[in-house]
């Protein structure tokens, strides 16, 4: 009972305080957007007037006083403007109090100068200042941006609240009634902690949506009235200075109001908030919170010991992983890294584009080697062939080294481990040289025996072999060491018994050696599959995916997407797909072989 009550209370507290925060932000944003729109319309008009004036040969001072006149006529003397010219690097006109324009720009005013060429031709809304909304537009003479006018719109606009007090009261009453009912019915009590937060968030979202729809038109009309007043003032000033203005009056459209407060996004945010509240509510009301607390209280030292590792894992493994995962739902690239998450959010589009790419080429056209399924096929063939060869050679070497009475075992073993000990990119570059069509050792050897040199990197097959040879060379020592260790642990008595029973050496190998190696080899193979699947260095350095990217594996492809095409979001989705493939493989492999248990037998 008490638990249910605290669950409901805490969850609702979270949801309501979060909702208040979001609504306050939304209302503030709406007001700022409205003020910004007024500033933008005003500054666009002033820039239009200014450009026309300058093109007609009026001096900057005259243009400046025309601008002041427009503000005065539209009853907006409180708004402050500054006219900055690029060539002269000067502040040509301003109605800021105590400002003596024209004067050269100060060093601290470099941002105003830099803004001139940074602005789009239609002008731009800028970050709001403490004094009010800010916008700027360039003055254009003969298609060149020669200067700009900046305005700070000081009068504040405050729209109606997104949810009125009365509506709040109704929501509160509803919550009380449902909460009370649930507490009276003990069976429902635990669920109330979960359902109430979601319900409250949903209702708040719906009410906001309705209120937004009903106030949007009012807001728009107000803004358009303001815009029209400025426009009329501008035209009047133009006429009195005998200037002919081009173009129509600036008008705000409904898209602007819709954009000022994104009702759908606000709804999603609120629902997420409700979900969070529900999780916390359920966590408490179903008893998980108290059992966690009990565990913490019983073994405090254990948790203290684990804490550094846990924090390290969170910061170094889970956070980047989660970040990459979230990134995979965006279209983040080099050019839009700075934009907000919501602007970059594309949902599952990256995954759809990766997995839904069935353009394989062929039929006259070249094979499409960039296709995901081609690359995945190559990766699977690559992994399988490497592991099979690596295990076969490693096992063979181990059996040879395990021969009783073999002299110089230590030397052989050291030599055979060497490929593993040398950094693999050095080995990879060496092998690349070995496969050089003219100067490489392999083609020289082929020619020495009278053969034709092979253009190793020109066709899919030979190019694949270059990577395969390199990676087998790199991977067999590991298998050899693992197998050798296991071989030496096999009980000699079993072979003796087998010999007495008349088993052939071949039977001994299949029935004694291999089963004894199983517990050691299986985990090694699993690990080796994962390593080979993601063996970036060998592919990237030896064949580099030649020809035409046909021998690229998934991980090198992801690298190219991220760091050669700069599509970070897409590459993140690619990486998640790689992770999922390996995850599925890992789960099935462990299920199928129960490798982890095998060692305990």
């Amino acid at each position, binding site marked *: 009972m008490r638990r249910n009550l605290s669950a409901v209370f805490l969850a609702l507290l979270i949801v309501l305080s979060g909702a208040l925060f979001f609504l306050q*932000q939304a209302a503030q944003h709406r007001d700022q957007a409205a003020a910004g729109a007024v500033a933008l319309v005003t500054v666009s008009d002033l820039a239009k007037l200014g450009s026309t004036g300058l093109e007609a040969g009026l001096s900057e001072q005259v243009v400046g006083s025309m601008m002041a006149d427009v503000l005065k006529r539209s009853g907006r003397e409180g708004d402050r403007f500054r006219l900055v010219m690029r060539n002269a690097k000067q502040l040509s006109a301003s109605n800021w109090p105590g400002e003596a324009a024209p004067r050269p720009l100060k060093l601290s005013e470099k941002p105003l100068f830099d803004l001139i060429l940074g602005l789009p031709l239609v002008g731009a809304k800028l970050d709001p200042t403490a004094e009010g909304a800010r916008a700027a537009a360039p003055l254009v003479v003969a298609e060149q941006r020669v200067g700009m006018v900046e305005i700070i719109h000081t009068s504040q606009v405050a729209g109606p609240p997104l949810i009125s007090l009365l509506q709040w009261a109704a929501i509160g009453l509803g919550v009380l009634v449902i909460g009370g009912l649930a507490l009276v019915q003990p069976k429902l009590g635990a669920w109330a902690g979960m359902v109430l937060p979601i319900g409250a968030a949903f209702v708040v979202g719906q009410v906001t949506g309705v209120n937004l729809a009903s106030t949007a038109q009012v807001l728009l009309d107000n803004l358009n009235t303001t815009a029209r007043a400025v426009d009329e003032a501008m035209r009047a000033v133009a006429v009195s200075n005998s200037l002919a203005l081009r173009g129509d009056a600036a008008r705000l459209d409904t898209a602007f109001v819709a954009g000022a407060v994104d009702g759908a996004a606000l709804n999603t945010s609120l629902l997420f908030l409700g979900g969070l509240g529900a999780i916390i509510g359920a966590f408490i009301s179903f008893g998980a919170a108290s059992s966690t607390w009990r565990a913490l209280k019983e073994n405090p030292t254990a948790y203290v010991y684990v804490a550094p590792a846990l924090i390290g894992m969170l910061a170094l493994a889970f956070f980047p992983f989660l970040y990459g995962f979230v990134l995979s739902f965006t279209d983040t690239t080099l050019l839009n890294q700075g934009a907000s998450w919501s602007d970059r959010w594309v949902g599952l589009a990256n995954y759809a584009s990766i997995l839904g790419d069935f353009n394989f080429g062929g039929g006259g056209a070249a094979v499409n080697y960039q296709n995901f399924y081609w690359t995945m096929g190559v990766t699977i063939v690559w992994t399988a062939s490497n592991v099979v060869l690596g295990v076969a050679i490693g096992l063979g070497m181990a059996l040879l080294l395990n021969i009783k009475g073999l002299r110089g075992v230590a030397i052989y073993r050291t030599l055979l481990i060497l490929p593993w000990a040398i950094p693999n990119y050095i080995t990879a570059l060496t092998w690349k040289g070995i496969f050089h069509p003219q100067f490489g050792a392999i083609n020289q050897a082929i020619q020495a025996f009278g053969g034709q040199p092979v253009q190793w*990197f*020109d066709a899919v097959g030979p190019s694949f072999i270059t990577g395969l040879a390199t990676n087998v060379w790199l991977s067999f020592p590991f298998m050899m060491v693992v197998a050798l260790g296991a071989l030496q642990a096999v009980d000699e008595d079993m072979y003796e018994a087998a010999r007495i029973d008349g088993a052939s050496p071949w039977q001994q190998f299949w029935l004694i050696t291999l089963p004894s190696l199983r517990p050691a080899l299986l985990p090694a193979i699993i690990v080796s599959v994962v390593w080979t699947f993601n063996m970036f260095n060998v592919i990237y350095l030896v064949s580099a995916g030649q020809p035409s990217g046909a021998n690229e594996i998934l991980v090198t492809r992801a690298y190219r997407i991220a760091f050669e095409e700069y599509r970070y979001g897409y590459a993140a989705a690619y990486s998640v797909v790689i992770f999922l493939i390996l995850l599925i493989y890992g789960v099935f492999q462990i299920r199928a072989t129960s490798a982890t248990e095998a060692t305990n037998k």
Partner: protein
Amino acid sequence: MAAHASHGGSPTKRSFLAAGLGLSGTALLAACGKSAESKRPALVVWHAYRGREKSALEEVAALYSAQIAGKARPVRCVGVPNDAFADKLSAAVPRGKGPDLFIFSHDRLGGWVESGKTVAPIDFFLNEEDRQGFLPGMLDATTYKGVTYALPLNFKSAALIYNKKMVPNPPRTTKELVEIATRLTDKSRGRFGFAYAYDDYFFHAGIGNGFGGGAFNAAGDLILNDPANVAASDLVRKWRSELNLLPDDPANSLVTALFNEERAAMVMSGPWFLSEASKSIDLGIAVLPMISEAGDKPMRPWMTIEAIYLAAGTADEHEAWQFAKFLAGPQASAIMAQKGGQLPASQAAYSVPAIANDPIISAFKAQGALAVPMPNLPEMTLVWSPADKAMKRFTKMETTSQSAWNDCQTEVQAAIDALRASQAGGRS
């Protein structure tokens, strides 16, 4: 009435989850670095120099710091490993954790401007006299969409490097080049008159630009499959596959090895080659030959220009600018050239007799006058890998130059469109 410059979006537009993650990410980053609100005791310059270039830069910094002692902050140079430099800049500077200035080549400029908050424009400080102080064309490289962002320091471009013993007179046209190369080449014995990384788009661009092609036209449109580029590619194909003048699979390391073993008489490479070349070879440097097949037009290799940038958000832009101007000025350029072995971009540095009379510097300067700055458009980074792929395809006769470049054009254009679409989506 779209609000074009309002990045960031509204808090309400962010979904709760995304906002939460973004916030925790920012908080984590903020926790990792110190806040840069107050002015640092020194003006920090990031660079990737090592060896003598590093000590030359430090000498310039010390000289400047002594000159302005008491009036402004001293300069502190911080070396950053070359391979991590670009990523470090684009991660640190927009978050206010970066240096006050940094030295980098010009080709990333467009990307930085487009992604914002990385480099500060300098037109406000730059007067006409400053502009005249640089070799012609240098400032174009550090200008993006009409705004200048950095002062050029030095340039690098490929030229013809030859073994004087094997080639007494360097060729002036590709016709002469082919004559000399035919005489000296014995492919079966691994001897070549002329070798260069011809399947590397960077080196090929000299010929492509010479024909009037290139990666982008003046309007910034991709023109990889332009007839001029195809003609340039056909010339290289002829050299390699018809006349058999060039080695197979020419990595830069192979070119260096061939030259050092006196198995290649001439190579196309840049100043960086000089430190790899064997000291026992008497080498000469000449301007790349004119292209007989293109009506004796000169080859126009790509030039990379190293420049000093003002990092966006530096605490005092004017102070930073003053060091940038000093570093790009005559006195510092002369030090960087003489002690750091650089090819200065400053006009005045060439009035120092030791620099003006240096045959290597003069040859590279002459080549530099014909070179074109590598495009600084952000799209350029998307060209490299597909272009190298196309180069390999047609040099190995897998397909014609035309179809290789057609495919490449399609691929790069798609990548550009994807990149641009993301930007448009972010700024609507």
